[in-house]
């Protein structure tokens, strides 16, 4: 009974991951992406493309499906809803309040 919604939800996550990964793989295969684990009630999982500086957060939709939602537009301008969402990882750069910083 619950397998179908679960499968659909996870399929969306995987499809989103693949879709997100596709552009960067053309630059540096497999080396650009890092996922910062979610902390329940504190922050969602965050996907960082260290090559381009783009970031996504994992959001659960109304139907229970998970999607990677971009934190910035393709031109690098911050999305209105993402202005306060930070993204960091073990890399040399992070984004915060729509600004990008590198060591």
């Amino acid at each position: 009974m619950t397998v179908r919604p679960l499968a659909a939800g996870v399929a969306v996550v995987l499809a989103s991951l693949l879709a997100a990964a596709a552009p960067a793989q053309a630059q540096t295969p497999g080396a650009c992406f890092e996922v910062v684990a979610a902390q329940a009630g504190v922050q969602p999982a965050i996907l960082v493309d260290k090559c381009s500086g783009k970031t996504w957060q994992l959001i659960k939709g109304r139907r229970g499906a998970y999607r990677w939602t971009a934190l910035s537009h393709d031109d690098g301008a911050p999305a209105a809803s993402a202005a306060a969402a930070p993204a960091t990882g073990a890399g040399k750069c992070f984004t915060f309040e729509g600004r990008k910083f590198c060591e």
Partner: protein
Amino acid sequence: MMLRAAGGVIATAVAVLPCAAGAVTLESLQGATIEATSMYDTHIRLDGREFDAQTRWSVRLSIAAAGAFNASFVRTAIYQGREKGSLNRSLAGTIGTPQQAGKGHAVWLLAGDKLILLRTFEAGGFKAEITLSPDGNGCSMRAPLAREVGAGNTRMQSASRPGSQVEVLSATQASSTCKVSR
């Protein structure tokens, strides 16, 4: 058919998302107080003149239930071995929630075995990575300054001359200390 596909998808997703085992959690941090200090060798520009100087940055972070914290920060300017002034700041908030801090912003995050502070200034920023030991009773800190892309040199309020802005031309973390108490 659907079940089989779901199994493959779940396995792939689990391989991509890191396991939370061993990670720092809000529960494991509850009741902890972290005190850390970082010393920097810097080259700065202040009121039109350039100096080699040192900066000491200290933080005391007390964490309560559900990620609520109280933090106090002290940044001290040191020139030729003598303290020239300091800036104190206190922040109370919740881990994971960004907040205004002076003319910039700050947020504490959890990532794996690290507690991370992201801090922005007028221009430029700062990332303090506090790595907790597996038993949660020890820590180390790495806290490099970070240049802001497209904003030039890092600029912040001067600790030695109130009202002035200091421009950081270079900064190297020379040493650090970190301890956890409960």
